[in-house]
């Protein structure tokens, strides 16, 4: 017993960093708060929403979901499917274009390479509205506005995606491997498809995810392009629902339930794949 008292006791604060942990927990609380609120609020019936304490769960979750599903013959679910289509197809095409452009810009030496790259990159800096207004007018001339294509086509080329793909191709595809492929008589396309593409795959997952989130979160482009609410993505759909809600507060419960359901797939996707993100790509990009 006495030896224990003599030995210097490991003091509690040294065992783990209390203050940093507490500060980060506060930050986490701040970030989770609105999500927690929307989770609780979606369980409330219309009358409970305005009368009970906001963090007290209500009794109306099932009713809210079925009411939301019934709203205008299930238009909400159509919005979700549309969002999945815009983000899924858009991100896939965008990743494909980024991959091949990034690869070309990383491994070949050719005239105009840096100018092409810089011009593409300047696209990142263009405010979406300077593009979206004339894009709308031009697509109107082609009779393409208010169509799925009008929301899909403009997002396929992502300057940021090309930039990331170039950095990733430069880092992941060694020049001698391409040279060896040429020695074996492979065509340039075949070398890209069978040798380089698999090597670039982890980086391309990141490009895909960035694009998926960016397109799912897109609001301005569909807001400008679409008139028919059957083609709306869920962000635009919720916005119109909220707008109507300001005159019909009964719709508020639908908006809240809709917001919760709209973030569930994104959070699920985020949790499943966050381990695959190679975010070092970003800081690696800064250093080069």
């Amino acid at each position, binding site marked *: 017993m006495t030896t224990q008292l003599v030995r210097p006791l490991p003091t509690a604060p040294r065992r783990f960093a209390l203050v940093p942990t507490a500060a980060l927990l506060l930050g986490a609380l701040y970030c989770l708060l609105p999500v927690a609120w929307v989770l609780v609020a979606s369980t409330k019936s219309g009358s409970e929403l305005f009368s009970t304490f906001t*963090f007290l769960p209500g009794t109306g979750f099932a009713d809210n979901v079925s009411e939301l599903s019934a709203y205008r013959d299930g238009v909400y679910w159509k919005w979700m499917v549309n969002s999945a289509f815009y983000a899924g197809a858009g991100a896939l095409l965008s990743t494909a274009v980024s991959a091949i452009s990034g690869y070309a810009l990383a491994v070949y030496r050719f005239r105009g390479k840096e100018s092409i790259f810089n011009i593409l990159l300047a696209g990142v800096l263009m405010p979406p509205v300077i593009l979206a207004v004339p894009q709308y007018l031009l697509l109107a001339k082609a009779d393409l506005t208010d169509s799925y294509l009008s929301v899909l086509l403009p997002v396929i080329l992502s300057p940021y995606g090309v930039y990331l793909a170039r950095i990733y191709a430069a880092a992941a595809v060694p020049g001698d491997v391409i040279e060896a492929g040429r020695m074996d008589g492979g065509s340039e396309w075949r070398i890209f498809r069978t040798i380089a593409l698999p090597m670039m795959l982890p980086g391309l997952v990141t490009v895909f995810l960035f694009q998926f989130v960016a397109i799912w979160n897109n609001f301005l482009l569909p807001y400008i392009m679409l008139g028919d609410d059957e083609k709306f993505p869920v962000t635009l759909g919720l916005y119109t629902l909220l707008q109507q809600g300001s005159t019909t507060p009964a719709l508020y419960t639908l908006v809240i339930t809709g*917001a919760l359901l709209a973030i569930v797939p994104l959070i699920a996707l985020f949790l499943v794949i966050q381990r695959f993100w190679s975010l070092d790509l970003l800081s690696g990009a800064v250093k080069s």
Partner: protein
Amino acid sequence: MTRATRRKAYGVKSAPYVFLVPATALFLLFFALPIGYALYLSFRRTEVSGLGLGKGARTEIWAGLANYTEALSDSELLHGALRILGYGAIVVPVMLGLALLFALLLDTERLRLRGFTRLAIFLPYAIPGVVAALMWGFLYLPDVSPFYFLLDKAGLPQPGLLDGGPLYLALANIAVWGGTGFNMIVIYTSLRAIPAEIFEAARLDGCSQWQIALRIKIPMVAPSLVLTFFFSIIATLQVFNEPTTLKPLTNSLSSTWSPLMKVYQDAFVNNDIYAAAAQAVIIAVATLTLSFGFLKAANSRTKQGDHQ
């Protein structure tokens, strides 16, 4: 040179151009052409002859710089720019300050719950701006907000969060909430890339955690800070989704609150695409000037540091 090698050399030469066809075509169609068209429109206006009825009564004519002088003297656009300035003056320092702080905290030793807190703070990145604005909008609404409920129970005065000065804080909070985690991850990732021996050496020299953070870590992640700053400025200048979403909840948010909202209003509500085009061009030029000016300033500063 045999025919086969010649063909192959030709293949290698033309391959990058072929590979860049999709990107170039999309760029021309959806970037270059719209920008050119916007520029063209910004120098045009419609002239109405007679009563403006019937076909041919409205003709498009050259307007010179009229749309630009009008836009630059438009008080609504100027006020929008000033509002964005005020909004950005809150968002950018608070968001990047928090992102840097959280990244440094994540990088401390003997931390608990590192994975959980990192993920939780990054999570808002996955949530659309519209949905974020919607969720916070309800939290700002006195009838449903837990904050108001608590203030009420405590008998404290209840501030109007969606009016006047607090409106800026309310909007800034949404941007800070949505962007801190992403920037934190960018900074944290580059902190992880610093070799551990540097810290070991500093500790042996008697540096405290604070000194290490201040003198070693922050200077070494300066490039990421530049990048996050750059992206934050661009995002701030283009703010549209959040104020547009909050608009139905308050009367204090005009439909021309931010410059982009004004462009939208003129293009699609007032049907004056020429004025809208000129404004869009002005915003684009301002954005490019600010971003390049910032990058240049950041670059020359880093160079100065190198010479020391």
